[in-house]
């Protein structure tokens, strides 16, 4: 305590008024902080998608993403629900297509770095996950035949397809649906969230630049200390994206409506196994088989019932609501949930990872301050250039 005070005083007298001071961080804490970076990571590459990272495919993907003709009634595009101006979500607690959906629309920031997709992880690749909304009746309600016809009949899209894939549009509709999804995936993988106040702090700590690190406010620092310390948050919210990419149960009610539950990961694994577009199927472009490791080895566990994917916390302060069901409205409510969660709410008798933290009001505001330091304004997005001018 005294050392902390002393360093605070030293700092206060030696540096300009802008700095508030630095907590007395241990070496272990600095290592834990370091693991949440660097940011941004290198561009994502998906070996199961032969046009991953290909500029012409990224361009085609962006056009398709904004094209309502992929939907049955010609009125709904991916961008209807994943809006650039709303951090690639829709500003609603739960999605809405041709009917109410049961889950919140996730942001697409950094989605190229994930390995399971959707709240239940039913998708094992970004391209397979991009097929789902096209075919789902409650979403775009389209079909392979309609996607095939669109790619063949629209001159600009047909030309964009040829540039992206190196061959002319064929007449196999299912293959064209998959290729459209692969272009959509190539585009979505470029959506990388901006650097944040946290990243500046993390880099300064790693570099030993105390003056720069002290620009991170004391509430933010205290919240971070809770996050990597007593809160145990970083066992699940691990790494640069603040997620380990797997699944957990933090005690959120899973009733969709009376008598009907969202079984989360358990149902997701069943959908995965039954999906002809999964990575074990014939549309995986990775001949080595390495990209299918997780799909091949994943096992169904009793504890999967009521588990949902651990969400990334980058840009988390910008979400319209929280959790798979959108059932919590603010970050303060989320933190209150972790502070008060009753062990009886957990759906499996398993892990002691989530327990009521009993936070004081100041600790709660600190944790919210920290979580709010994980987002930043992204530069506005220019309209995509024409495909084949």
């Amino acid at each position, binding site marked *: 305590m005294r050392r902390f005070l002393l360093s605070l005083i030293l700092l206060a007298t030696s540096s300009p008024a802008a700095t508030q001071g630095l907590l007395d961080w241990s070496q272990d804490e600095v*290592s834990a902080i370091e*693991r949440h970076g660097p940011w941004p990571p290198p561009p994502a590459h998906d070996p199961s998608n032969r046009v991953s990272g290909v500029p012409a495919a990224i361009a085609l993907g962006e056009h398709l993403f904004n094209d309502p003709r992929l939907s049955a009634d010609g009125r709904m595009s991916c961008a209807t629900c994943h809006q650039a101006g709303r951090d690639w979500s829709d500003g609603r607690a739960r999605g809405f297509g041709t009917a109410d959906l049961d889950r919140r629309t996730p942001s697409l920031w950094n989605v190229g770095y994930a390995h399971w997709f959707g709240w239940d992880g039913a998708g094992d690749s970004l391209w397979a996950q991009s097929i789902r909304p096209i075919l789902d009746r409650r979403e775009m309600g389209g079909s392979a035949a309609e996607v095939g016809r669109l790619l063949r009949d629209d001159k600009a899209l047909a030309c964009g397809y040829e540039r992206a894939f190196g061959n002319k549009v064929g007449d196999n509709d299912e293959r064209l649906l998959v290729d459209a999804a692969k272009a959509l995936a190539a585009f979505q993988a470029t959506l990388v969230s901006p650097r944040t106040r946290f990243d500046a702090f993390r880099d300064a700590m790693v570099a030993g630049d105390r003056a720069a690190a002290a620009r991170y406010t004391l509430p933010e620092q205290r919240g971070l200390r809770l996050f990597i310390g007593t809160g145990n948050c*970083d*066992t*699940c919210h*691990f*790494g640069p994206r603040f997620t*380990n*990419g*797997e*699944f957990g149960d933090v005690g959120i009610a899973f009733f969709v409506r009376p008598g009907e539950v969202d079984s989360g990961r358990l149902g997701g694994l069943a959908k995965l196994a039954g999906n002809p577009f999964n990575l074990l199927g014939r549309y995986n472009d990775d001949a080595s088989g390495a990209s299918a*490791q*997780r799909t*091949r*080895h*994943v*096992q169904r*566990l009793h*504890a999967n019932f009521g588990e949902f994917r651990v969400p990334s916390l980058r840009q988390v302060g910008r979400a319209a609501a929280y959790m798979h069901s959108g059932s919590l409205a603010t970050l303060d409510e989320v933190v209150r949930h972790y502070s008060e969660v009753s062990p009886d709410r957990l759906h499996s008798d*398993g*892990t*002691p*990872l989530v327990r009521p933290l009993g936070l004081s009001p100041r600790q709660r505001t600190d944790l919210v301050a920290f979580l709010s330091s994980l987002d930043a304004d992204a530069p506005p997005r220019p309209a995509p250039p024409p495909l084949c001018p």
Partner: protein
Amino acid sequence: MKILAALFALLFANAAWADCPLDLGKGTGWVVFSDHYMIAFRPEPMRIEVGQPFSLLFNVCTKSNSPAELLMVDATMPEHKHPMNYRPTIVAGTNGRYRADGLVFHMPGRWELSIDVRAGEESERLTHDFILK
């Protein structure tokens, strides 16, 4: 260090152990042993990262020099009371060599690896702890 010393003592005391090739190609790895078995293994890739699939390469030896079988490889986090979300598969090579594919340690912390081996009738479980950061 203590393990190494014990290992050497063991190696010199038992001629059969001396034939057990512990090097799995990269010059590093771990060795676990019991009264009957000595098992050397290393991960591939060499560094285990949280959430990233990896394989383990094994060399299984028995004191009596009789052939041994690697039955199963699994891992749990004892403090968190949960298993891996993935089930490894085992591929047998020649001369006691095995490969387990599809392991993923999805959280930082302590993971306890269990290795089930059998030679003849008796099977046995050997364990090894990893601390993942």
